[in-house]
């Protein structure tokens, strides 16, 4: 993928269009097979999309693609009020994580600032008919009218998707939960807030283990908070958490019960040439993701994405500039609070491409093999369904091309914060405030 080369043919479909604040999407997540895509919004709702498959269940033919249609919608969290502190608790869904599928039902964890919930999503497409004691409407029959006995049979019916809360993990966090991560053991998960990380068992809601606590004895001494945390994809004893100072800490739960002491700490020494008052703020890591292989870490800070090798702590192995042209605008971005925006980052299925969001509805993809990046746009006005997405460019000097966008005309209210990449194919889901865009790479789909 290059800036000037041909873009991959991209197929996309538009699925949602709302205008209210409550419909701003706040998290996007594919499940482990990629057939289901869950989104959470500021209004506390979760919408699950399902990929359409061929009737026979075969993979889609060349040229056709499985589209995602709404599968189920439910209200996950309601606005709450903390009476002790006289503060509202937002119902905004901060994160959704799917559990590995073990039976016909699907399970997902959703969390707002304080409470994590486990939801069971199950289908019902058959119903029993022919009861002896009840009639068709469910009323009890008069027993004297029953003259013969029959066995009820299961008849197909319209598909019904039921979503029920199975566990509610409440009162585990004093501060705002920013991450949840399901362990590879399939039994536990972690939840991280600004100062603490707890480990829960999926079946136990009244207890959790505190595994990291960075709250200082005197809150006046607080200078660093936890920004994200994730379990290792294969090793159930390892997890990583990132901080607002730009450090990553890898912790091994076998070492001690309380993992305040890290096994490894990853930090990049500060570049003295680029030092400014905003150095610390822009070094704050907003998202951290293990690669699928488990060997690398991907982090996003304000201006860059970095790839770290777990075996090398002294610095990242790769650094990609997302929007370096903003470095000279940091003061304005500080003033309008954009500098505190938390962008997510994702790996593709083979760990060869990384993706993250930016402003003006732009998002960036970096090919790790070539080191080159491409800018794409998630904006309805400039693309049509099934049309090829053209690459965009921000003009930063040199020859100006048609379609280049100047730095001063970037729209900082249109930010791409949340995104997900299909675990197996080149399908991406991009959340652009109220809208969800799903893009597919058709060229690669043909080659698969």
């Amino acid at each position, binding site marked *: 993928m290059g800036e000037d080369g041909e873009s991959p043919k991209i197929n996309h479909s538009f699925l949602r269009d709302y205008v209210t604040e409550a419909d701003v999407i706040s998290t996007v997540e594919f499940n482990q097979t990629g057939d289901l895509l869950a989104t959470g919004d500021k209004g506390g709702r979760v919408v699950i999309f399902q990929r359409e498959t061929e009737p026979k269940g075969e993979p889609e033919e060349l040229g056709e693609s499985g589209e995602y249609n709404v599968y189920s919608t439910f209200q996950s969290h309601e606005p709450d009020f*903390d009476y*002790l*502190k*006289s*503060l*509202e*608790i*937002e119902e905004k869904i901060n994160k959704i994580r799917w559990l590995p599928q073990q039976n016909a039902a699907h399970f997902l964890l959703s969390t707002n*600032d304080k409470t994590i919930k486990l939801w069971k999503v199950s289908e019902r497409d058959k119903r029993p008919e022919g009861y002896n004691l009840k009639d068709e409407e469910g009323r009890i029959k008069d027993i004297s009218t029953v003259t013969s006995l029959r066995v009820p049979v299961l008849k197909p019916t319209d598909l019904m998707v039921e979503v029920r809360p199975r566990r509610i993990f409440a009162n585990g966090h*004093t*501060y*705002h939960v920013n991450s949840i991560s399901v362990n590879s053991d399939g039994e536990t998960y972690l939840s991280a807030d*600004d*100062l603490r990380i707890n480990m829960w068992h999926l079946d136990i809601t009244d207890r959790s283990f505190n595994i990291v606590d960075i709250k200082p004895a005197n*809150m*006046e*001494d*607080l*200078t*660093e*908070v936890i*920004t994200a945390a994730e379990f290792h994809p294969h090793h159930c004893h390892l997890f990583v958490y990132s901080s*607002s100072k730009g450090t990553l800490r890898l912790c091994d739960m076998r070492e001690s019960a309380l993992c305040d002491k890290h096994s490894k700490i990853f930090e990049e020494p500060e570049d003295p040439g680029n030092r*400014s*008052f*905003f150095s*610390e*703020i822009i070094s*704050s890591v907003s998202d951290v993701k293990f690669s699928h292989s488990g060997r690398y870490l991907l982090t996003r800070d304000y201006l860059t994405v970095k790839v770290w090798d777990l075996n090398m702590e002294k610095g990242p192995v790769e650094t990609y500039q997302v929007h370096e042209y903003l470095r*000279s*605008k*940091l*003061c*304005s*971005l*500080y*003033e*309008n*609070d*954009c500098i*505190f925006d938390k962008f997510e980052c994702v790996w593709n299925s083979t760990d060869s491409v990384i993706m993250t969001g930016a402003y003006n509805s732009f998002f960036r993809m970096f090919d790790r093999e070539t080191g080159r990046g491409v800018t794409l746009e998630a904006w309805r006005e400039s693309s049509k369904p099934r049309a090829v997405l053209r690459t965009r460019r921000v003009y930063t000097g040199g020859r100006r091309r048609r379609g280049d966008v100047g730095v*001063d*005309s*970037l*729209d*900082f209210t249109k930010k791409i914060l949340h995104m997900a990449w299909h675990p197996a194919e080149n399908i991406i889901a991009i959340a652009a405030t109220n809208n969800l865009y799903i893009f597919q790479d058709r060229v690669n789909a043909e080659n698969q």
Partner: protein
Amino acid sequence: MSGSLSALFDHVSAVGEGNAGMSPMLQAPVILVGWPRRQGVLVSVLWLSTLDFLFGAKHVLQGHQALQRQSLLDMSLIKLQLCHMLVEPNLCRSVLIANTVRQIQEEMTHDGSWHMVTEAFCGTGQSPSERLVATEVLCRSREQDAEPKLFSVISYEGCREEEVVADETLCSVSVSDTVSNVCLAGRMGQCWEKSELSGVERDEEALEDSREDEEVDTEDGASTEGPKTIGQVFGTFEIKNGSPGPDSALEELFSDVDTSYYDLDTMLTGMQSAPKMGPYDLLDSLAPSHSSPSIVSTPNCRSDLNELDHIMEIIVGS
């Protein structure tokens, strides 16, 4: 309160829209309530538009650098104090802003450039008490009837710093006599501009010395009582416990400000903890002459305190 606040906002936005050269980024509401109301507002808006240039330019004059640093400091303090929302403030954001404030303060300390700080505020010719209005307005918290408490000096409640920055104690050296402080402030304001009097230089040195002393104390982690110099105000991160000296002009100036929200834990967790000082203690410590007519507080809190006083009198029968 809301009337004056919105009037300030209107003023700011009117200035902003008139400036056609501003980029979209700067069209976000620019809250400059802490600034002096008159030409200071326009000046500061223009400063922001040039701030990006100033921050980016490698070779800047010493004055510019200090100015940009000051602007950043003010912006940060305003951001910290605007965390009084219904929902708990974002802790990460507060921590990052507080760290920035600390960083600026350290740098300003090492540069010894306090004169820039005072020049920015005392140089406009406005009396400090009028600036107090603006800051007090911003520092209203939701609970008007909450008991006033001692408040921590820096970190996660910016209002305190905002008050202090705009306040006359910046211009004062030591706090021993209320009356003399007021006079000193008035004189200082003019002195900084002229910077002629040797008294100014002496005071400046004394200021820096005492500030540096306070810095050392702070690094030792000790919380100090005594004269509230700039260093103490900016440098210490401890919640001040115990009753202040009755001569403390700082305490008296802000005794009627509701400070319950400035307790650190309150700020961060929203929990209202027990006040460290009862309201009656503070009332007792108020010197009769303290309530100088120049301090215009919003009617709410003042009337609450007066009411409290009145009720106390009735109960006590004095």
